[in-house]
């Protein structure tokens, strides 16, 4: 791995000679206390990474159990009630404990200050608090899951959720607490973007990942309080029967759904916008080109965040919502497609005539692009009222949102894990194994969810542990794909753990990326930048055009 090119930055030069005096954040204090009570955004990001991967494992095990159960019609390994609990827990763990904090809390936390030239986020102690609040909420949730579980589905729709005897209250309370963590992270990042930018980094010089995180944080701040209130109302309802959403007392369950999706639809963009941001960084780096249409990509992040708030009713087309509202929501849903398409075209425009280096993160980018377009297009179809009515609550919907959740977010999570692995830990992983597992995961993903589109289109409803004989072939294919997917993840776990311990030192900038985060050392020292104020390059990802340069950046 070559060290960073001299074009990288003038400001980085002075602290090379002092490098020994400023140990990296990883070794600056090695006691357990120095980790648990740290206010360093990088250490908090790493701690988040650990727990998020742990919960990803838990959610993944639930997913595999579901797929094994669906291998044959009738009970395979569990009964109907256990199945209901399992898919609920899969949804809750994956959404609240993994997907929502995944990219913002880990990579956002780690990269945002580095990309803005700041020493830390604006409120470091709030940042640490957000980590412990997350853990507290997770403990409540897991306690509830172990003591009776929850069988409402992750959407905990009333009136069932207010009457079920499973442990609604602790799980709702856990979700409520995790909401605070999400809000704290969001506030922290917005304030960081506003106040902590280094001289010269104006709004339109911020890396696109920062833009994406900024838009995500706006959603977190505006939407999360509503779900917080709603979880409390459901818990109270379940414990005391206040009748807020109880039709027997004049309450309207559809109103619950309105409030629920007011958060939970924008929450989809909390999960997927950071993924878009990661991909904007990855595609620039490995195409050796500045992003095509920087402003359009930046604005479209805000655009998605904004119109995302106007689309929630498309989850409720068959709920009893008025046809007027359904029509309005159907039309507004299409707007999300417009902004997403802007991004997709710009990514493709970036790769076009670039000097592509086909490394592991870029492989994930390719998978991501396909899944996002495919998942997005099926989303447009599902946003059409007349099409949604027969597809509603079938596996078609399940496959659609997994294309976005897994296909976009997890691909981006894995891409960022690989792309920023050297940045975070200063080690390199084995590129060959990286590509092999990427191939397995992308193949396995297709094998898992494309059959689900088909089986859903044939009419198999979601959330049933049983199905007619004729759906078995497709279900077996899906389970086989899920196993392949799990195998791919296992390989990643092995080679990344190996790289963490035995990997070669990566040097400062192994990808020769011109992203702002690579201006600092890898891994960075505790306060990110030592010595005088660092000057940043003109703009992030400013590469010499590979076709014009005499000595191109690209190889």
């Amino acid at each position, binding site marked *: 791995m070559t060290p960073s090119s001299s074009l990288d930055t003038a400001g980085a030069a002075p602290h090379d000679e002092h490098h020994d005096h400023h140990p990296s954040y990883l070794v600056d204090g090695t006691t357990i206390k120095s980790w648990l009570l740290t206010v360093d955004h990088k250490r908090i990001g790493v701690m988040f990474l650990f727990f998020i991967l742990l919960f990803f494992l838990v959610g993944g095990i639930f997913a595999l159990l579901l797929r094994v159960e669906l291998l044959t019609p009738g009970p395979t390994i569990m009964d109907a009630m256990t199945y209901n609990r399992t898919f609920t827990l899969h949804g809750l763990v994956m959404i609240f404990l993994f997907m929502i904090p995944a990219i913002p809390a880990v990579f956002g936390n780690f990269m945002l200050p580095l990309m803005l030239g700041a020493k830390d986020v604006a409120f470091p102690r709030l940042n640490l608090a957000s980590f412990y609040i997350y853990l507290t909420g997770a403990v409540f949730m897991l306690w509830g899951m172990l003591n009776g579980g929850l069988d409402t589905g992750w959407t905990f729709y009333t009136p069932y959720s207010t009457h079920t005897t499973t442990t609604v209250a602790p799980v709702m309370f856990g979700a409520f607490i995790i909401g605070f963590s999400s809000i704290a992270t969001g506030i922290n990042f917005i304030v960081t973007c506003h*106040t902590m930018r280094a001289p010269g980094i104006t709004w339109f010089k911020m890396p696109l990942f920062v833009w994406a995180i900024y838009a995500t944080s706006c959603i977190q701040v505006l939407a999360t309080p509503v779900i917080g209130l709603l979880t409390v109302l459901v818990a109270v309802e379940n414990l005391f029967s206040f009748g807020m959403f109880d039709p027997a007392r004049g309450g309207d369950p*559809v109103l619950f759904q309105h409030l629920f999706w007011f958060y939970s639809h924008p929450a989809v963009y909390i999960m997927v916008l950071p993924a878009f941001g990661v991909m904007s960084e990855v595609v620039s780096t490995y195409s050796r080109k500045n992003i095509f249409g920087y402003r359009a990509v930046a604005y479209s992040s805000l655009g998605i965040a904004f119109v995302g708030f106007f689309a929630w009713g498309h989850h409720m087309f068959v709920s*009893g919502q*008025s*046809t007027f*509202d359904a029509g309005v929501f159907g039309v507004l849903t299409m707007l999300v497609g417009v902004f997403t398409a802007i991004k997709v075209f710009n990514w493709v425009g970036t790769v076009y005539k670039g000097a592509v280096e086909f490394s592991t993160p870029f492989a994930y980018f390719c998978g991501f692009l396909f899944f996002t377009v495919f998942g997005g297009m099926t989303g447009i179809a599902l946003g059409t009222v007349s099409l949604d009515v027969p597809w509603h609550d079938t596996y078609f919907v399940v496959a659609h949102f997994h294309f976005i959740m897994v296909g976009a977010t997890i691909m981006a999570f894995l891409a960022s894990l690989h792309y920023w692995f050297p940045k975070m830990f200063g080690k390199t992983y084995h590129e060959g194994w990286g590509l092999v597992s990427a191939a397995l995961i992308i193949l396995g993903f297709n094998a898992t969810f494309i059959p689900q589109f088909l089986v859903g289109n044939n009419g198999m409803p979601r959330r049933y542990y049983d199905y007619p004989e004729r759906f078995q072939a497709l279900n077996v294919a899906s389970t086989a794909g899920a196993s392949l997917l799990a195998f791919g993840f296992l390989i990643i776990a092995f080679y990344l753990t190996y790289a963490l311990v035995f990997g070669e030192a990566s040097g400062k900038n192994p990808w020769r990326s011109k992203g702002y985060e690579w201006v600092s050392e890898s891994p960075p020292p505790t306060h990110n930048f030592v010595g005088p104020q660092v000057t940043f390059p003109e703009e992030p990802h400013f590469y010499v055009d590979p076709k014009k340069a005499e000595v191109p950046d690209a190889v």
Partner: protein
Amino acid sequence: MAIANESHQEEKNMHEHHGAGRYWLIWGVLLVLTVVTVVTGRMHLPSFGLLLALVIATVKGTLVALYFMHLSEHRGANRIVFGVSIVFVVLMLAIPMADLGTRFRGANPPGSQYSDLQPPDIGTGAQRGRFGGGLRPHQTKDTPETPEPGHH
């Protein structure tokens, strides 16, 4: 040391200092408006009573936000944050209410003004009571508003 320009501007705005008089003035206006809203509320104005009360509340809220919370001196992000949150509150109110107003009548909660269905009888015992009330065992169903169950 150079910093983001926003903070300079912010600091400049916040260094204005006024006499305490304006707070007392605002307080007086708020009290007057409270009295106005109570008096007009007592009249139970037929159709625009709610509107009037909300307009007065909005004026009062604006005064508090602008002068007590110093929003009038803020520029940029602080104002936008507040404005945006209000926009989303309105959005969240408007859409479900539009839904209730335009919904198929049968899908509205029974017993409401937009439904033709009778409110359901929710049983006896601890949950007895026609409209969801009633832990008292002597609670009966023959209050005038209570039609016989199962008919309409």
